[in-house]
């Protein structure tokens, strides 16, 4: 193992710089808002980068010095200057705080490279997950779907418990019986809807509008269930959003979109993220979410411009080859209605292009909004950085779909692990050592109906 050091900001400004300059430069470097980095310049030492290889440390020092912030390199093993700062700001200082870290290192599984600190690492494998997946499928089919609830818990548990952060796994604690009840209710609703469709369009319309009306309840319940049943270091996550906000976010705002001709669509996307990120908590520390709607308008605006540009290119292409298309169009007088081969090929290409564009813009929006929301989140002193690249996701997703198609679905586990590994690998937890100072909040049991509902409505909470 190579020698590791921490980069420490002394909290002082170098001569020749103003505070505002340094703040904005630091904010830019750390991808954060100026007011969130203010505490770094208040005269007390703070680590900005932990466990850096000694030979790359000077690069950090150079960059920070250029920004006007005084900093130094801190050898691991010396008394931690941030330690004093930690116990002074944590409401309940723990005397045994340093014990877990030293303990973990002594455990056999603890010999993980210190470089991974602050990064969640997925230790599962596609082949191992494949076997779990195939057994899940078989047992679910044999039991007419009843085992599905257990299968779901096992799948989630597999991904959670093989995801290690600071060498500790996450855990999923949901009771399969609760999920089974949820599945049964959703299944009944689905059968009613299908039968209603057969009986009369009015009946299915009524069932559809009722389910639309109760959708916010499902989402609210499912987020609570999801958060409450996720744990790390045996401390549960929590979700404190209200039902009222859920109704505003999932019923009122979508209704406004057609009325405002789509102008509120980015705002809706923002509010959905806001509902999750601003209400999630870990133990007794609630997430402080500083996200604003404006970046969402930038991301969606970019996609809209791209779309208009694409339409323009396609339209001019069609105009350019007008004669070719007119010939290729089916002759209305011809009863057999045979399309010419050229027309079919062009249609096929256009469809493929549209599909690719749709997937690509979806992945772009996912990566941008996810990155933004994580960088704007802060649990007490723990904050995050996510650097998902749209181009990587644009490659991963369509190739995953192709692989799944050509393997008749048997590569689904591989595709899932591949995407999960990438998304997880882009997330960095800054100051992750603070994770060992979290205290549990009081617990309440949650209902699983909502959790199943999210599967049917394909609601994505986003990592």
């Amino acid at each position, binding site marked *: 193992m190579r020698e590791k050091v921490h980069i420490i900001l002394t909290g002082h400004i170098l001569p020749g710089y103003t505070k505002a300059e340094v703040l904005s430069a630091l904010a830019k470097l750390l991808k954060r808002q100026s007011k969130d980095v203010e505490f770094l310049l208040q005269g007390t030492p703070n680590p900005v980068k932990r466990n850096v290889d000694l030979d790359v440390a000077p690069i950090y020092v150079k960059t920070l010095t250029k920004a006007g912030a005084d900093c130094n390199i801190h050898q691991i093993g010396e008394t931690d200057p941030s330690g004093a700062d930690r116990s002074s700001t944590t409401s309940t200082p723990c005397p045994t705080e340093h014990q877990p870290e030293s303990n973990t290192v002594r455990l056999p599984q603890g010999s993980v490279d210190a470089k991974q600190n602050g990064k969640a690492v997925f230790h599962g494998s596609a082949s191992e997950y494949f076997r*779990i997946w195939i057994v899940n499928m078989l047992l679910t089919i044999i039991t007419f*779907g009843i085992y599905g609830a257990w299968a779901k818990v*096992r799948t989630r548990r597999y991904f959670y*418990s093989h995801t290690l952060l600071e060498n500790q796994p996450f855990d999923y604690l949901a009771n399969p019986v609760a999920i089974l009840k949820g599945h049964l209710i959703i299944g009944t609703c689905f059968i009613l809807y299908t039968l209603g469709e057969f*009986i009369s369009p009015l009946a299915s319309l009524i069932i559809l509008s009722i389910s639309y009306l109760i959708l916010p309840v499902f989402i609210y319940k499912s987020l609570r269930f999801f958060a409450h049943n996720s744990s790390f270091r045996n401390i549960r996550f929590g979700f404190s959003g209200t039902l009222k906000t859920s109704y505003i976010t999932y019923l009122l705002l979508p209704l406004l979109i057609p009325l405002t001709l789509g102008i509120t669509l980015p705002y809706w996307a923002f509010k959905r993220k806001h509902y999750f990120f601003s209400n999630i908590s870990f133990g007794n520390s609630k997430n402080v979410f500083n996200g604003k709607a404006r970046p969402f308008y930038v991301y969606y605006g970019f996609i809209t411009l791209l779309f208009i540009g694409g339409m323009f290119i396609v339209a001019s292409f069609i105009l350019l080859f007008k004669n070719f298309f007119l010939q290729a169009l089916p002759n209305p007088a011809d009863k057999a209605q045979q399309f010419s081969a050229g027309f079919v090929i062009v249609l096929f290409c256009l469809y493929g292009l549209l599909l690719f564009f749709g997937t690509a813009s979806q992945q772009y929006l996912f990566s941008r909004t996810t990155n933004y929301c994580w960088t704007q989140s802060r649990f007490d002193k723990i904050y995050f950085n996510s650097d998902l690249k749209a181009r990587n996701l644009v490659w991963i997703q369509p190739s995953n779909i192709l692989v799944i198609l050509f393997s008749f679905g048997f590569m689904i586990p591989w595709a899932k692990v591949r995407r999960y590994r990438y998304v997880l690998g882009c997330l960095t937890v800054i100051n992750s050592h603070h994770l060992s100072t979290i205290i549990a909040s009081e617990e309440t049991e949650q209902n699983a109906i909502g959790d199943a509902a999210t*599967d049917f409505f394909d609601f994505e909470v986003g990592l």
Partner: protein
Amino acid sequence: MITFSGTYFDGKTSIAHLVEVRLKGTEIRVKGYSPKDPLIFPEEQWQIEPALGSQRRTIRTEDGGRIDTQDYLAVEQLEVITGQNKGLRLVHFLEIRWIWAMFCIAGLIFLTWFGAQFGIPYMAMKAADAVPNSALNQLSEKTLNLLDDRFLFPSKLEEIKKKKVQSIFNHVIAELDPSGDYYLVFRSSPKIGANAFALPSGTIIITDELIRLAKNDGAISGVIAHEACHVFQKHGLRTVFQNIGIFMLISTLAGDVVSITSVAATLPTILIESGYARQFEQEADLVAGKYLIKTGIGTLPFQEILSQLVKDHRELPHFSFFSNHPETMQRINKLKEIGTSDNLHSQVK
């Protein structure tokens, strides 16, 4: 005595404590958490989490604590001693061996095929039988009203012609399903063109266009026999239940990643559903063909009207007499087969 080391989380703080766990009788003792005495949990106060993949093993205690360990052997012994997780231990046994995974793949393929081929059609039939007649009547009435609103207009057929078709209808029903409750309805429909529909209650709708297209009575009796078969075999309801079943099967199989495979999952659904529809059409054609041969008309008039319909084909709603355009040639060929088969001939005679 079983002893192993692990990490203990008390559930109140996120601190990890290195502990030593010892099994004494059926109680476990956790040493290393509090400086003085070990924590003691009697048998009913602790629970082993089922094994999964290569994750470290976990024991939960009733007060919300959690012990993690990588001493797999020790925890397996604990499981055997206390008899916990019997079912899921078997599941884990299957999950960690490739040979069993292979058996599972084979089993899954077989069960999917068997379910789509026999299981779902059988259950759909049972479900269709369970639907009470009153519900069928109500449902059919609503469907007829809907069709009247959108596609159908009052018939402009002369009374004489109507009477003639009605008498053909009565003959066919008397032969095929005398105890059934059938009702003939005349409608005109420029939108749909020549066609006939059967509603589950036994109402059979024939369009004026079809009657005009038919060159002889044999063609009309063939169409009516075909529709009557849809009624007494409950094809309409069975289709609905089968499609629900197939949707459930496919979404169970693809359910894990519905978002990225939804496009891929619709294709097999469509293929299987159209396969079911084809089966029902064949069954109805067979009944019609047998009826026509038995009454001495032969399948030729029915073949003719099918090929005429290909030329007249327009947009169609569900459960119509003529729905699968490219397959009509196949249907006609099948009828020819029935018509020329001596074996069948002697059978029905």
